[in-house]
């Protein structure tokens, strides 16, 4: 078993152990996966696909994120194959998609001006502005509130699971805490809206 910085290690042949660690919120396992599987993925992709190394690295990083997302959001709850096999399967699909997208890639200068309606651009701008405000507001909450919001909305934990994981006295206390965090988030947003 390979040792990693900070004492973290990961036995990648046991996919279920890896899943369990990710579900517990142990992110060091992600670094371990990256370090252990990167060399093999790069060599494998170089032989199988005509894609330059930078793209392969991007694809590998995206594959690790997709794996994390599937586990964290509860889409992947058990693994009867190794993490390597699963991750390489994601990587293969993403590499094929990259190659396909390159083939149908249009030069943006060749698109007609009508393709960019003003109102659409405004809408995109407004959406990205409001999301930026929201992102800043979320950062201003501090770790306990952020933890509970990310657990609930990203990892889709039940309030019962949040209570267990974060050590709240009861599910009701965890629920109240989440409500307060959301109220605070809205307060921060409303204050920023008025400025």
């Amino acid at each position, binding site marked *: 078993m390979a040792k990693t910085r900070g004492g973290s290690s990961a036995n990648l042949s046991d996919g279920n152990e890896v899943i369990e660690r990710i579900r517990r919120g142990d992110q060091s396992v992600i670094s371990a996966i990256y370090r252990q599987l990167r060399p093999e993925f790069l060599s494998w992709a170089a032989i199988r696909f005509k894609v330059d190394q930078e793209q392969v690295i991007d694809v590998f990083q995206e594959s690790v994120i997709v794996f994390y997302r599937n586990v964290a959001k509860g889409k992947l709850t058990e693994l009867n194959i190794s993490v390597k096999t699963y991750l390489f399967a994601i990587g293969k699909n993403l590499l094929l998609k990259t190659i396909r997208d390159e083939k149908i890639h249009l030069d943006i200068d060749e698109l007609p001006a009508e393709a960019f309606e003003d109102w659409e651009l405004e809408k995109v701008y407004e959406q990205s502005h409001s999301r930026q405000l929201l992102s800043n507001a979320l950062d201003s909450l501090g770790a*306990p509130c952020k933890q509970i919001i990310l657990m609930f909305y990203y990892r889709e934990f039940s309030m019962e699971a949040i209570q267990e994981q974060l*050590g709240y006295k009861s599910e009701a206390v965890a629920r109240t805490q989440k409500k307060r965090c959301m109220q605070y988030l809205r307060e921060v947003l409303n204050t920023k809206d008025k400025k």
Partner: protein
Amino acid sequence: MNERDYQLIEDYLNGSLKASEKAEVEARLMQDNAFAKILAQQQDLLAVVDKKVEDDLRLLLAEEEAKLSNNVTNKVSSPTIPISRWLSVAAAVVVLITVGWLLFRNESSPNGSTLFAENFTAYTNIIAPNRRGENDESRLSLAFLAYDNKQYQKAIADFETLKSDTLKSELTFYIGVSYLAINEIEKGIITLKDDAIDSKFAMEKQWYLALAYLKKNDIDAAKIALNKALHLSTDPVLGRNVSELLDKVNSIE
């Protein structure tokens, strides 16, 4: 908007409403702009949360990539230098390093105290805004106002009074941080070790304990606390700070 509306929107988005409730929400969205705005805000929140978690991960992986690429570059580039040139360059480097080390050894190697100064910031006040409308509102708000204004002695006194009635875990944690902010390191350590601080602050508690040990130049205790924080790893941003600090602490002779 009331809490029920927010809950309704949340349930609508996660698909847990009955068909009749769903139809009711959809009808209201057509007529009620404020309600529609809250829905859009909640959709934005879901997108922002996804982006935030995954951007943090991308950053983590980019850091890993940078470290691995550097290793590969170093391994590949070193044998390409001819041996005679390598020896003369190496001799010059040894002389420079020795002179540099003699001149700057005090300034260049980090010590516990400088690492404390570089890394310590008082933990964000996340409590007072959450407690409006409750009985202890004014006292709690005033205590946190003092904390936000860096009047830590007053904040400590107020938190001590309040903690027997409310938020014992949270206020004990803030008392510990306040002690560190005014350089009362021993009191900070004793307070942060208090079992009253529950697991919500487990990682943060180890982070501040590590900083306190660094200030005392107790490097071994700091390493233990940082490793505990790394193991807990509930906050990826703090996790990165912990990793970086641990690297620096490990480089202390």
